[in-house]
């Protein structure tokens, strides 16, 4: 099973590629083929990830402004977290960690917790300017 981890990683990347192409072509939830946000549907509240699919779709079609409007925090945080997760996934697949790595440390880690949880709370408040944080 020398190449088992590489095979799994490539399979996941291919699957994400297919999903991304599907999204690029069809647009988000136009035909009810995705769940949307189940948390939003059951509670009526927005979660920290709400609007990410639409933001990604807008970004794919070059509309950065609209993407930012759908999920301002996710638009910044998601690419960073995804890139660093990808780096760790490659290190995992080749069974050899990187000599230099971004270790966040407790302060940044807790700041991210407060950012995500705070964003979650604020975007559900019904008053301007917090309504700007909710996806339109």
């Amino acid at each position: 099973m020398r190449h088992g981890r590489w095979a799994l990683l490539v399979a996941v990347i291919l699957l994400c590629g297919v999903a991304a192409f599907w999204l690029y072509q069809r647009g988000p939830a136009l035909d009810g083929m995705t769940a949307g946000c189940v948390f939003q549907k059951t509670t009526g509240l927005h979660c920290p990830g709400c609007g990410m699919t639409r933001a990604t779709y807008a970004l794919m079609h070059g509309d950065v402004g609209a993407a930012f409007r759908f999920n301002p925090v996710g638009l910044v945080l998601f690419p960073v977290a995804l890139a660093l997760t990808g780096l760790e996934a490659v290190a995992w697949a080749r069974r050899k960690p990187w000599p230099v790595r971004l270790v966040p440390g407790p302060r940044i880690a807790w700041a991210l917790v407060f950012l995500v949880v705070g964003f979650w709370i604020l975007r559900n408040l019904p008053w301007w300017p917090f309504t700007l944080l909710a996806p339109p």
Partner: protein
Amino acid sequence: MNWFYAKNGSQQGPLSTDEIKNRIAMGEIGPSDLAWREGMSDWMPVGQISELKAAPAASASPEATPSFPTASSAASPYQAPSAAPSPVQMAPGQVIPSYLWQSIVVTLFCCLPAGIASIVYAAKVEGLKASGNFAAAKEASDNAKKWAIISLVLGLVINLIVFAVSFTGALQGVQPQ
């Protein structure tokens, strides 16, 4: 044994154990330079890797040091001071992953409160590691991993169910026409 080391930002290797010991002996690799071999889960400063600590005399005649632990601790004054016994003995090169980035990805991807639990545990790992409480850090790390997996699996399962339901619904909707 294939050793790698990092010096001034560039990675060198592979080297055999004897080769890397020679370079350490010659001063080409300092005790604070990072080294790694297959089987270690992370890079470590050369000065903290016990396998690379043998004195130059020992590498010339390995059979001359039969009682390794006591002989080396007595013979090498530059050995790292052995700390007070910590609750968890760390294996060489062992790191405690915090899963912080993974938990942020699943939270933004799956929209589940389980993702938030994972991020909180990930932040706790960083704090506990910084304060040296490795047993609690390991526990928080395991919890962060557990909740990230729960969030990912739940998100995928829910989406697959909705996809299947809407797909069969679409088929049934088409058939009567």
